[in-house]
Each structure stands twice: as structure tokens, then as C-alpha cells.
């Protein structure tokens, strides 16, 4: 009876808060039935409150193995991936101290990238047990750093605390010296020998320059980036889109005025990179034992984002192709092959393939 009275006293806000806490505590998506049990209410009530939380964008519905489940929409981590309480506390410790050190060195408002890159260095040096991922601008903490947020409220005792802070001071001194976002990122890509990210940076640099002067260089870097991207069963679609982009760039550099297409090439590369980076996020995240169920992690947290980035890249690559095809009408003569024995052999192979033709289903006969 006492329990019933207590339940009646709860306001709707309290019940919703309770649902959010439970979803946070469990670190996994729950069904309405699971939530009902945990908060001690009936199915209809739980369903109503979950619906409200969905409308408030605090909870997201997902379908997993045919089951309707709900997960928390987090604001403090990338792509809503959950972190544990101890991990959160460690991040608070790192963010708070990094910010203080930057201030002590005269950087009143350090940029997110400065904080992130400094902390990653420290995390890896001391093997601090917190999740880190590779994303748009390289390796970063799974928890977002927010400049306005107060991170001083941590209670965790960190082993080697003083040693970590001292090391952090040295790292931050180096980062402050670089004082340029691109330079900070580049130094990380270099330190981790991440060819994919190095090529990305080099392509952006070429795209901000005179394209007609750097055509060959652009082609080479795009090819190298394509080959630096991991080829896995679950990256085939992304792989083939990067390949499509690579082939398109290879053909476009044969056009007389490439600078004319600079803006559209840059936009396309941007979409290609965002798609690539989200895969790198997924790949690096699933290396952690608790995220090792790739299919589940993808379905719960990443599927929408990955599909969305793929669709955008598909669309924009197709737009770039249309630009290229339209530009062909301005050309009088297409380029020719260099005359050599090897080219002749290639031509023989192509003719052979042409004569084989295709089957009804599109395969060769």
C-alpha cells in the first residue's frame, strides 16, 4: 500500500526522469516491458511516457532482431554511444585538467580540437581505460568536450594523477606551439601513421589551391586514399563509392579547365570524407570488447548515420558525374593513349572482353 501511495505521488516529470536514468544505467536499449518492470508501472503508462520522451527527442526507438526497443539520446557522447560512469569521471578529470593547463599557458578558451588531441596523447601514453575513436578529424575521445561545461565535479581517484598532469603539461605546451588546427591534426595523423587521414588532409590542401596546376597530384592522392581505406565485408558499399569518386577524378583531370569544377569537387570530397569517417568511427569503436558485436552496435547506434552519409555521398557523386558528362560537349578531341607495346596488349584484352559480350542477367556469356 505504501508503495502505491509513493507511486501516486510521482509527477510525470519524475517518472520520465526515472526512465531516462534506467536507460542510462542499463547501457543498452530496453523494451517497454523491461522499462515497465524497472520503474514499477503498468505497460500503458510506460508506453505513454516513452512516447513523450521520444517527442522530446530524449529517447529513440530502434528495431533490433524484430524487437521494438528504446535507447537514450545522449548529448555527451558522439553518436549516442554509451560510456560507463567511471569512464565519464575519467573524462571529466582529463577535460578539467587540460582546460586548466591551457588557461595557465595563456589560452583562455582552448578549441575542442586542442583539448581532444592533447587528451588522446595522454590517454594512450598512460593506457587510461576510456573509449577513443577515429572520426572526422582523427583520433578523439568518445565523450564530447563542451567548452561551456563544468568538468570539475569528478570524484574518481586516478592512479598516477600527478604524473599524468605533468605529462599533460608537456603535451599541451607542444599543442599551443602548433596553434593551428590543421597542424595539430596533421601531427596526430603522422604520429599514428594513419595514411588515410594524411591523404585526406593533403587532398583538402590541393582542393584549396590551383587545381589545374595540381591535377596529377590530386589524382594520386585520391588513389592513395582509396587504397588506405580498409576493405572489409561491411565496408564494401563505402569502398565502391570511394572507388567511383577516384575514377571520376581520374577522368575529370583530363578536362581542360578543372578549376571550373573546384567547388563541386570539394563538396563531393567533403561528402565522401564524412562517409569514410563514420566508417572509421564504427571500425575503431568495435575494437572494444564491449562493442564487439558489430551488427548490434551498428543497428543500435550507427545505422542511420552510416546510411545517411552513404546516401548523401551517392547523390553528390552522381551530381559530380553529371557535371563531368555535361562538360564533355565542350571538348573537341578526347585524349589519346601513349603508343607502346603494353597499351596494345591492353587493347587486345579489352577487344576480347567486348566480343564475349554479356548474358541476359548482365554477366558474361
Amino acid at each position, binding site marked *: 500500500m505504501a508503495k502505491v501511495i509513493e507511486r501516486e505521488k510521482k509527477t510525470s516529470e519524475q517518472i520520465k526522469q526515472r526512465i531516462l536514468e534506467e536507460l542510462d544505467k542499463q547501457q543498452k536499449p530496453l523494451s517497454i516491458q523491461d522499462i515497465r518492470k524497472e520503474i514499477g508501472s503498468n505497460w500503458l503508462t510506460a508506453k505513454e511516457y516513452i512516447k513523450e520522451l521520444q517527442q522530446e527527442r530524449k529517447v529513440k526507438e530502434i528495431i533490433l532482431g524484430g524487437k521494438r526497443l528504446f535507447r537514450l539520446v545522449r548529448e555527451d557522447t558522439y553518436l549516442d554511444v554509451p560510456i560507463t560512469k567511471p569512464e565519464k569521471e575519467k573524462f571529466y578529470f582529463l577535460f578539467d585538467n587540460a582546460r586548466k593547463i591551457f588557461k595557465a599557458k595563456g589560452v583562455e578558451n582552448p578549441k575542442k580540437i586542442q583539448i581532444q588531441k592533447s587528451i588522446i596523447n595522454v590517454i594512450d601514453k598512460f593506457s587510461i581505460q576510456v573509449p577513443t575513436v577515429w572520426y572526422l578529424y582523427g583520433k578523439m575521445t568518445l565523450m564530447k568536450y563542451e567548452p561551456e561545461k563544468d568538468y570539475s565535479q569528478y570524484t574518481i581517484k586516478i592512479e598516477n594523477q600527478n604524473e599524468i598532469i605533468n605529462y599533460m603539461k608537456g603535451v599541451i605546451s607542444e599543442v599551443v606551439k602548433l596553434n593551428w588546427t590543421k597542424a595539430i591534426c596533421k601531427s596526430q595523423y603522422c604520429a599514428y601513421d594513419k595514411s588515410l587521414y594524411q591523404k585526406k588532409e593533403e587532398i583538402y590542401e590541393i582542393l584549396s589551391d590551383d587545381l589545374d596546376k595540381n591535377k596529377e597530384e590530386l589524382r594520386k592522392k585520391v588513389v592513395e586514399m582509396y587504397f588506405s581505406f580498409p576493405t572489409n565485408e561491411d565496408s564494401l558499399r563505402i569502398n565502391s563509392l570511394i572507388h567511383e569518386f577516384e575514377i571520376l577524378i581520374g577522368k575529370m583531370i583530363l578536362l581542360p579547365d578543372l578549376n571550373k569544377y573546384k567547388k563541386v569537387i570539394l563538396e563531393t570530397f567533403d561528402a565522401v570524407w564524412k562517409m569514410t569517417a563514420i566508417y572509421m568511427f564504427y571500425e575503431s569503436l568495435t575494437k572494444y570488447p564491449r562493442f564487439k558485436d558489430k551488427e548490434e552496435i551498428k543497428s543500435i547506434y550507427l545505422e542511420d548515420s552510416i546510411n545517411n552519409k552513404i546516401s548523401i555521398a551517392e547523390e553528390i557523386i552522381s551530381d559530380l558525374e553529371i557535371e563531368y558528362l555535361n562538360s*564533355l*560537349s565542350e*571538348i573537341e578531341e578526347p585524349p589519346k593513349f601513349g603508343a607502346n607495346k603494353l597499351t596494345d*596488349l591492353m587493347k587486345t584484352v579489352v*577487344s576480347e*572482353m567486348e*566480343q564475349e*559480350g554479356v548474358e541476359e542477367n548482365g554477366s*558474361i*556469356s
Partner: protein
Amino acid sequence: MDQFLDTGIIIGYAQDEEKFVLFVKNKKEKFIVCYFVLEKDVHSLTKRMRIIINEVKNKIKDKNYQINKKELYPRDVERVNKFLSLKEINKLTDFEFIDFLENFQRIFEFRIDFFIQKLINKKVIPIREINFKLKSSLFTYTQNHSDANIIASGIQYHQENEIVLVTSDRNDWTKDNIDWAIPEHSELRKKYPKIPKIKYV
């Protein structure tokens, strides 16, 4: 008379072969192609080339790389190996050979795109409109699905718009093959009484 082109004309031009380049240079009539040429033949050929070249590049970059046989037809697996031995025979460095392959591929595709965009005047007969009986009958004699579909498209289009079939294939694209496939007094001949002439490049 409008010229209805076989795939070989586009590919020959893309390969910069003299007789095809000359044929294009002397273009006076309209160039017509059917959708089968564009959507099946040319598309499939460039796709296969891309896969073969990519596999060669993968193998060059990583000696332990296993050729992706799922993506390739058996004959194309052989071609990957053939290309790899070409590199050895010609004593080219990895970089030189990859650069050569990429260069070949992009010029080849560029020339195909150029032909399709700039030289073709009309695309006709969607693949779904190709008469099944007609192409089946043609297949009996040509034993080649591409030829059967393209010739069928040409014959269908010729009933309303006079054309000449243009090919370099003197073995399969013959008047005899067409006459055998569409015998006089047959149902097919009643439906398609006009047979286009064939011009060889």
C-alpha cells in the same frame, strides 16, 4: 541513312583504333545506339575492367592479397594473372605499372563517355521492349546474347525508321544469320518484314 551502331564501334573508338576513329571523323549521318549497348554491354565492360585493374593493384600492393574471385568471372581471374605477368615481363616497377593501368583505364573510359555524350544522336529501344522471340531466334544463330539483343533492337527500330546496322563483326552480324533467324513466311518475318542492311567498319 541513320547508322545503328554495335558496341564494338564505341569500344574501337575508345581504344583509339584507326579505322573506328576514321569512321567517326567521316560521320555524315546520325549515330543511333540501343539501350542494350549502353546499359548492358558498355556498362558491364567498364565495370569488369575496373574490377580487374583494381584486383591487379591490390595484388601488387600486397603480395599476400587473395584475388576476390566472387567479384570476378573465371576468365577475368586469368586476366588479372595475365596483367601481373605483364608487369614482370616488362620489368616495370609497381608504381610504373599501376600508373600505366590507371592511365589506360581513365583515358579508355573518358573516350567512351565522350563518344556517348558527344557523338550519339539518339538512344532507342529500351531493354524491356526487345522482343523475346526475335532475340531468342537470333541467339540460336549468333550464340551471343549481346549480338542477339542488339540486332533485335536494330530490326525493331528499322520497321519504323530506316537504318543501317554498323558493326565490325563479320562473323555473327551477317545477312545469312538474320535470314535464318527470321525465315521468310514465318510469324517473325510477318511481324518484322523489313531487314536492315549491314555495313562493316
